[in-house]
């Protein structure tokens, strides 16, 4: 008897969430159908695993110099060869994934956080607040992003930390616009009106109702941007405005090999391949996510 009602309850539960479950099934179906998205997912998973287990995968210390073994071509001993200081490039590339992940995660948190807050305040309060915040956003958007990131990085002095700050200061605008649009949509919903009628403060409404609704579009956009973040960071590194030696940052490593390009091609080539593969993974995944979320392409 008791079991009966339980299974009834379960049935009702499933029934009431059918649209949601159907939606998930549909998404899973689209994911399986798109081989490119699957490949992207696998690349990113592999990238994360490599970054976590870097000390176990890398055969050498990424910054240990051994001048007796400098500029050696790829061999079974040094898979990707060695650089001008005799450092093992394979180990440096593996450790570079940790730097890349560090940049991605911190930039996403900082820029996503700033952007969401600015956007939510602008959208929720509207009027002058909105006008001022959005014009400021426009001003940041008036620069090509690398140019602005270069300016911040150079002014603060080149280092890994400053690279992260500089890139965050550039990318928050995207999320601000998104969060604002979402806040505008949410703030006029009836349950918000009801909250307000019951005397809830603006602060409370923003943090317990508006903000949570803005998180998911911002999260999606964050994943779409991760490839670009790596490229920007690598670009800064290449120009000498990013992480400083001997940090095994991929962009800086490509730059290291520039003077040896003709005879020791491997120094620049392998870190570049690492960047390309990881960014490709993010882009394939991002493309897939966009397609899956695009209502026009869903059917």
């Amino acid at each position: 008897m008791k079991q009966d009602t339980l299974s009834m309850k379960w049935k009702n539960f499933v029934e009431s969430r059918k649209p949601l479950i159907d939606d998930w099934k549909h998404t899973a179906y689209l994911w399986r159908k798109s081989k490119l998205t699957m490949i992207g997912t696998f690349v990113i998973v592999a990238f994360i695993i490599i970054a976590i287990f870097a000390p176990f995968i890398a055969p050498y210390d990424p910054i240990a110099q051994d001048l007796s073994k400098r500029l050696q071509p790829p061999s079974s001993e040094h898979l990707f060869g060695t650089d001008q200081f005799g450092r093992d490039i394979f180990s440096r590339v593996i450790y570079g994934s940790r730097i890349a992940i560090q940049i991605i995660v911190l930039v996403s948190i900082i820029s996503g956080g700033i952007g969401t807050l600015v956007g939510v305040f602008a959208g929720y309060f509207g009027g002058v607040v909105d006008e001022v915040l959005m014009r400021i956003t426009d001003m940041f958007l008036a620069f090509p992003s690398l140019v602005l990131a270069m300016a911040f990085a150079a002014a603060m002095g080149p280092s890994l930390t400053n690279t992260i700050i500089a890139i965050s200061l550039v990318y928050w605008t995207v999320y601000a616009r998104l969060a604002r649009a979402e806040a505008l949509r949410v703030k006029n919903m009836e349950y918000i009106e009801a909250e307000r009628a019951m005397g809830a403060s603006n602060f409370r409404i923003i943090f317990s109702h508006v903000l949570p609704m803005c998180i998911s579009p911002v999260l999606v956009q964050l994943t779409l941007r991760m490839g670009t973040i790596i490229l920007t960071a690598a670009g800064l590194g290449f120009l000498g405005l990013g992480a400083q030696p001997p940090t095994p940052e991929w962009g800086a490593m490509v730059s290291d090999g520039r003077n040896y390009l003709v005879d020791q091609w491997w120094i620049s080539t392998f870190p570049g391949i690492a960047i390309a593969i990881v960014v490709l993974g993010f882009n394939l995944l991002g493309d897939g996510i966009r397609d899956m979320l695009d209502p026009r392409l869903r059917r």
Partner: protein
Amino acid sequence: MGLLNFIIKRLLLMLLVLFGVLCIVFVIANIIPADPIGALLGGNAPPEVVDQYRHKLGLDKPLAQRFVDYVAGVLRWDLGVSLRTNNPVTEDIKKFFPATLELAIVATLISVSLGIWLGTASAVNRNKGIDHFARIFSILGVSMPVFWTGLLLLLVFYYKLEWLPGPGRLDIFIFPPKTVTGLILIDSIIEGNWTAFWNGLQHLIMPAFVLGYGATASIARITRASMLDCLKQDYVRTAKAKGLSKRLVIRRHALRNALIPTVTIIGLTFGSLLEGAVLTETVFSWPGLGRYITNGYLVLDYPAVMGGTLYIALIYSIANLIVDILYAFLDPRMRV
């Protein structure tokens, strides 16, 4: 009338934004701690020389005074004197910008034509081999760091195969054409200097391709999506029902509508080309504005960096303005 109002409004907004840009640039250059004098003279310069330089650069004045001076200068198109080249920054920009412009224009042509072509081919053959190939090809372009692609191309086509010329805009023993527009291709046509034209074109191929290929993906992507959208529209079915060939249905009916959103992305592309130019110019020793700014950063050449960055933001804003207007003009529904 509506269009005119729109343009005026957009223009006023742009001026406001540009003022903000100026503020940002000023803040970055003056408030964030870094020591230009130190970078210029090295850490061990005697204090009186340092003071002399501070005075020369106006760094001893109060911040507000410096800001007012700078804004007044900008309004007179005076961006100060570069510490590195000792020329007025405006002169330097005039000298270096055409190289960037030429590169960006050719790269835009490459990325727009390649992107539209790939995107259309993708959409028409959705989920077939061509679609997969076109998507991988374009996504690969946006995934490879331009500075790396540039280096590899230089290695293969210049150092190893010797098919294409290396860094710079012209070979050193070629007489450059007289500067009229600053664009070598156009100047050499004006002068009838075909040797320079041919050599300049060869020099352009690699950097323009590297730069353009990187921007192809976003154009291909948006063309594909809006093309897929258009192919599903009723009017495409009408066109098919009229008995038009597949080619005409795509070109005349679907593509024309699909290109409207693509136009907006071209403005963004131009922006990404400007930033790509910073890296490409460094790799190919291209004497453009991007390289000028980068070199400026390395020695903290404030006036050059501020002026150059300001100028790029200006160009970027104008490009976006043009695209907005073009967009309003392309869609007859917006023209009312």
